[in-house]
């Protein structure tokens, strides 16, 4: 128990724990001090000065995010002086910010805009020089617009402290400061993994996903192509937030209906391919265990993780499962199995993926994922882009009548649903691998040890007397730690699940922006999104991937068996070491 001390906020007396900052104490007491560069998951930067408060006896206003409380402290969060100073600070930030809110992609979702409104800025008093830089549009996934940047540094800290990719830095100084990769390299040439977490934490539009909505609207209006959509598990768990719902509402049926209304001829569910991934990955794992293959086997569903491992862990490439991600499996089958069923030329099919992820845009463009020279996934849009398209087309998502996904690539088990959250792929794999290995059905299928938001989780399961040790990491920073362990102790685990984003796909870089008065990547919101998927799993009769009747049918009609040559052609891939020089993501101490 921390010692209690007495402080006064706005002349009222409170007992609070010692050893915390003014902002932390104020938050708990219900005083929300405006803030910008602060994020609870990141180190304290104290650069924006928006969170200043008046402390009696202090020479200047102090930044409440970094100033500790002390006994007898008299704090004023809302005095006239502090209100005016805070407003001036925000006006000065706005001074070097484009005046183009109404044409900005973050219009209505911008923290800076909300902040300006909340302190009552109704006129621009400072008009000075404005920075002018080119946008970096080089990446298929993440674009960078320094003109929108207000140098809060949240992206830099997210990239280095949480993801430990260390792609971004604040280069140059003073008025010329710009957030950029080393050597001002274009994003597509940098070590950016395309995870999109910079977008999630950016208060403005300095980082955005590359937007494909106009291109997609154009294609949806083309009567000569067959438009096929798929959507990831965690999209349904989060898209409601973009329509004002609280996190954790499953919008699966509504989303299917909305996608049909948007003009898709068929709406499939990526959860189907998640089940299929389990069949392939589970079989691959057993094959490795039984035939002395490379262990631990590490999952390959997360596109950001794939780029990360190719860059930073080329020595572990043989440990990576050769399975494509569910998205790429689903797309490959859409243009083969499904095209054959329809009796159409696969070139006539437009395969669109609605993903919680920005890195999937990068993945879709990877040349080795082409099948017979044809790109499998034509367009990837994020949850955010999908939400915008639905709104833009005048579709009332909240009141729409829910519909079911199409067959034969839309049926899924509960195991497919939990793919969207950290630990879910492992849990789904255990359910199936156990049965494939022992021939018995696993009774207790909910694996609590690998659920939840702990950075690295471990579990074990005994199959036919053999102990299988598993580990799960989410976020590339936690992943770095786990990979270091595996380098040092290669025999410690048999099977490892990695998801590149905090919380897994539910915290993906393409998920809806934080609503007003919430913070990006709020743990509670992530848990609620995950819960929606766990509830979806519980509500299903079929909860094991190998029991999915459409998956069984697919093997009978097309793929033959897991790991068959046909499966290999459509569902498996390979990786290539990328060795960027000099970029060291590990064991480094940056920030505070």
């Amino acid at each position: 128990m921390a010692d209690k001390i007495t402080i006064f906020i706005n002349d009222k007396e409170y007992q609070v724990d010692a050893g915390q900052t003014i902002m932390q104490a104020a938050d708990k007491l219900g005083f929300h001090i405006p803030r910008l560069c602060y994020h609870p998951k990141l180190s304290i930067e104290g650069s924006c000065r928006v969170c200043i408060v008046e402390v009696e006896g202090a020479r200047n206003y102090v930044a409440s995010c970094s100033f500790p409380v002390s006994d007898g402290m008299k704090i004023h969060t809302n005095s006239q002086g502090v209100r005016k100073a805070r407003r001036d600070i925000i006006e000065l930030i706005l001074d070097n910010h484009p005046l183009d809110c109404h044409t900005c992609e973050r219009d209505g979702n911008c923290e800076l805009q909300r902040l300006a409104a909340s302190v009552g800025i109704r006129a621009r008093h400072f008009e000075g020089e404005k920075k002018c830089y080119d946008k970096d549009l080089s990446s298929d996934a993440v674009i960078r617009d320094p003109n929108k940047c207000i140098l809060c540094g949240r992206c830099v800290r997210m990239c280095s402290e949480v993801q430990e990719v260390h792609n971004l830095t604040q280069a140059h100084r003073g008025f010329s400061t710009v957030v950029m990769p080393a050597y001002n390299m274009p994003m597509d040439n940098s070590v950016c993994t395309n995870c999109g977490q910079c977008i999630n934490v950016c208060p403005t539009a300095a980082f955005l996903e590359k937007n494909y909505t106009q291109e997609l609207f154009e294609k949806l209006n083309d009567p000569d192509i067959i438009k096929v959509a798929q959507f990831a598990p965690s999209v349904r768990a989060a898209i409601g937030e973009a329509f004002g719902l609280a996190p954790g509402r499953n919008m699966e049926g509504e989303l299917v209906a909305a996608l049909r209304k948007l003009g898709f001829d068929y709406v499939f569910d990526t959860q189907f391919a998640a089940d299929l991934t389990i069949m392939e990955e589970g079989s691959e794992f057993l094959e490795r265990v039984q035939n002395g293959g490379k262990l631990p086997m590490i999952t390959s569903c997360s596109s950001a993780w794939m780029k990360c491992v190719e860059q930073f862990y080329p020595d572990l490439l043989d440990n990576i499962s050769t399975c494509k991600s569910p998205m790429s499996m689903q797309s490959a089958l859409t243009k083969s199995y499904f095209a054959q069923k329809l009796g159409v030329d696969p070139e006539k099919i437009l395969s669109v993926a609605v993903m919680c992820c920005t890195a999937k845009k990068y993945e879709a463009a990877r040349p080795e994922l082409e099948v017979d020279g044809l790109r499998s996934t034509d367009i990837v849009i994020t949850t955010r882009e999908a939400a915008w398209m639905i709104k833009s087309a005048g579709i009332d998502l909240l009141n729409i009548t829910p519909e079911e996904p199409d067959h034969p690539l839309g049926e899924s088990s509960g195991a497919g649903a939990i793919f969207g959250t950290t630990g879910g792929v492992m849990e789904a794999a255990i359910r199936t691998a156990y049965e494939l290995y022992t021939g018995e059905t696993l009774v207790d299928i909910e694996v609590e040890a690998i659920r939840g938001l702990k950075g690295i989780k471990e579990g074990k399961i005994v199959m036919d007397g053999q102990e299988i040790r598993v580990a799960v990491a989410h976020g590339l920073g936690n992943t770095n730690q786990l990979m270091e362990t595996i380098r040092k102790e290669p025999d410690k685990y048999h099977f490892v699940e990695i998801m590149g984003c905090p919380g897994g796909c539910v915290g993906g870089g393409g998920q809806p922006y934080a609503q007003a008065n919430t913070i990006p990547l709020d743990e509670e919101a992530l848990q609620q999104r995950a819960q929606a998927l766990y509830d979806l799993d519980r509500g299903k009769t079929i909860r094991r991937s190998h029991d999915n009747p459409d998956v069984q049918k697919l093997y009978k009609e097309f793929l033959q068996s897991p790991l068959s040559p046909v499966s290999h052609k459509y569902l498996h891939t390979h990786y290539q070491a990328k060795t960027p020089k000099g970029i060291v993501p590990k064991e480094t101490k940056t920030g505070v």
Partner: protein
Amino acid sequence: MTQIAQDKLQELYDFIEDVKQKDYTESYLIAVLHKVQELFGYLPQDVMDDVAERMGIPTAHIWGVATFYHYFNLKPVGKHMVSVCMGTACYVKGADKVLETLKKELGVAVGETTEDKLFTLQEARCLGACGLAPVIMIDDKMYGELDGKGTIDVINQYRKAAK
């Protein structure tokens, strides 16, 4: 790679090995970058990559430091560094005219290097020789009380010496 370049790299590597023996190795980054500039005249990207790997500091972080300090040159520089003092005393005595003369004579803007790689032109804050204003410094030699012709004469001395 030439022998000279290899020797320079070796000297740098030894320097880095030295600082790695000390506490808070990371805090020696600026010292290491100074060493790079001393050896190569500027901070070549592949050498910064080397520094990143050998010191275990991400390249982006090194880039942040390298761009923060004006002292570090990010592009190759000429054989001679021409610094024009723009301090108050020099300025009132016509430093701007000296600078204009140099720009015209050398055919470069501030921060650029002449085509023959002989001179790099840069501005400096007070060089501490206000009594001689306006002054320029070439490498570590000071030239004072300059006018247009005097400036060109100084430049020509170096050109002659280079031939």
